[in-house]
């Protein structure tokens, strides 16, 4: 097994606030790892450290075969960052944005036009190529942002909350684009607050809470850890109770009996746990009884 990222013992504090606490992380080459966590869990800080923007207080990481601390240039050559805000110049056209970044990446001047043309077509921006990026919709800006990231195919692509603020259709389109890039062999570190996004895109999900990874596995494994089947009871007073069960008749019966004293449920249903439930059960104490 080869890894594109291996990080050990990463720590980062801002003042008294401990953002990353002895964090270890490994991302297999060619896979998509989703970092899932509430706001302030340290997702963006981790991305910023691995993308050479911020130095960790302690710990070390190897990214694409290069030590983050001693060979940041080599790391920078292997990565591409798509941050929380679309990093496009709104006063430049889509084509100018791509041309500038291509030339900064030292694509030969004669090859720039061709590569930019290919990318515009690939990311469905040909018609808007000569309009200023400021006039683009949110989805188009994100596509342009991704196109810039793909000028030279990176070994590791950071997608920091790539669909925050996008409408559902644009989100679906962006997911398709990301799947296509993954198909080309790009390793992806995705951060998201949307569990559905992790479910859709990620091979591995790591749940980050208070600067530590509190759970890690495939989406299915994490869901299985919470319980195979969730029993949902709705009471007349609008109370909802969800109980994890193994899904067997005996187990469901026992769960129903336990809540018989609480009143007569008006509706009973069974469902498989969503990543949301995994997330809530792992990252907050009060919801544990619910799960």
């Amino acid at each position, binding site marked *: 097994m080869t890894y594109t990222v291996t990080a050990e013992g990463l720590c980062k504090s801002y003042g008294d606030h401990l953002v990353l606490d002895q964090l270890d992380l490994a991302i297999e080459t060619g896979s998509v790892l989703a970092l899932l966590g509430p706001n302030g869990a340290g997702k963006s800080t981790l991305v*910023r450290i691995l*993308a*050479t*923007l*911020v130095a960790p207080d302690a710990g070390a990481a190897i990214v694409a075969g290069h030590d983050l601390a001693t060979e940041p*240039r080599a790391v*920078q*050559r292997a*990565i*591409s*960052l798509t*941050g*929380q*805000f*679309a*990093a*496009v*110049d709104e*006063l*430049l056209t889509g084509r*100018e944005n791509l041309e*500038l*970044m291509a*030339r*900064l*990446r*030292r694509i030969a001047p004669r090859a720039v036009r061709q590569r930019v043309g290919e990318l515009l077509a690939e990311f469905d921006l040909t018609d808007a190529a000569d309009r*200023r990026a400021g006039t683009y919709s949110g989805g188009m800006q994100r596509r342009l942002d991704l196109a*810039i990231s793909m000028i030279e195919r990176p070994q590791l692509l950071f997608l920091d909350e790539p669909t925050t603020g996008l409408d559902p259709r644009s989100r679906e389109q962006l997911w398709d684009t990301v799947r296509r890039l993954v198909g080309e062999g790009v390793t992806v570190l995705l951060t998201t607050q949307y569990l559905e996004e992790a479910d859709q895109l990620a091979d591995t999900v790591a749940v980050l809470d208070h600067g530590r990874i509190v759970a890690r596995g495939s989406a299915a494994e994490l869901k299985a850890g919470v319980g195979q089947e969730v029993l949902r009871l709705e009471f007349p007073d609008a109370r909802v109770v969800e109980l994890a069960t193994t899904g067997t008749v005996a187990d469901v019966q026992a769960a129903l009996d336990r809540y018989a004293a609480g009143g007569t449920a008006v509706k009973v249903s069974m469902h498989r746990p969503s990543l949301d439930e995994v997330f809530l059960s792992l990252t907050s104490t009060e919801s544990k009884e619910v799960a």
Partner: protein
Amino acid sequence: MSFADALVDSRLLAGRCVRRSLRNPEAFFTALTLPVVLMLLFVYVFGGALRTGGAYVDYVVPGLIVLCAGFGAGTTAVAVATDMSNGIVDRIRSMPLSGSALLVGHVAASLARNLIATALVIGAGLAVGWRPTASAVEWLAAVAMIVLVVSALSWLAAALGLLARNAEAATSVSMVLMFLPYVSTAFVPAHTMPAALAGFARYQPFTPIVETMRGLWMGHTSTGTSLGVEAVAATGYCAAILILSAVAAARLFRARTL
């Protein structure tokens, strides 16, 4: 990272800044009309009432040049602050570019904008009767002084833009640079001011800068101090501001995390 690479990065990023300036029509229009409007205002509205010994236009041209340079510095500070509050700076910092290429780009574009504004001040001055007595060598020295001032102010503006967290803050911080020339010998001789103010005006950086240009163009300073002394002071101030600001800007840029 070779010097040649750093040069290419800076040139590409300066090109971006120039393009951005041209695409902001309101700011561009203001920057171009300001030198002319100020010239007309100072010469025809205020100039008649001001006694500086000789035609007021002969006195005021260096003052208007530094006033426009202060305004230009504000534009640069805002441009840097705007970039720093946008995702684009993270992308650029995560790319294998030379450290301060983005800042050098901003400063180069700032230099270009300010030299155009200076040329407009000089052109407008000549059109309304400014008659400098300078020789070709003195003209060259005056231009060198302008390039030095504008470079120093541009780096200072870059540092201020990095310190300010957003464009609004950058505007207020750089306001100081736009008003400081008024309390110097740029528009009126220092001895006409109240003693405390005159003391400040006499020794603040804009005075030797203005007096150096005045001495070069018109053959005499307004302070009575010799051109040589003013020129040494002006060069010293500018070099100090330039070096301190450039070092501070480079450090702030590296340390800056959103």
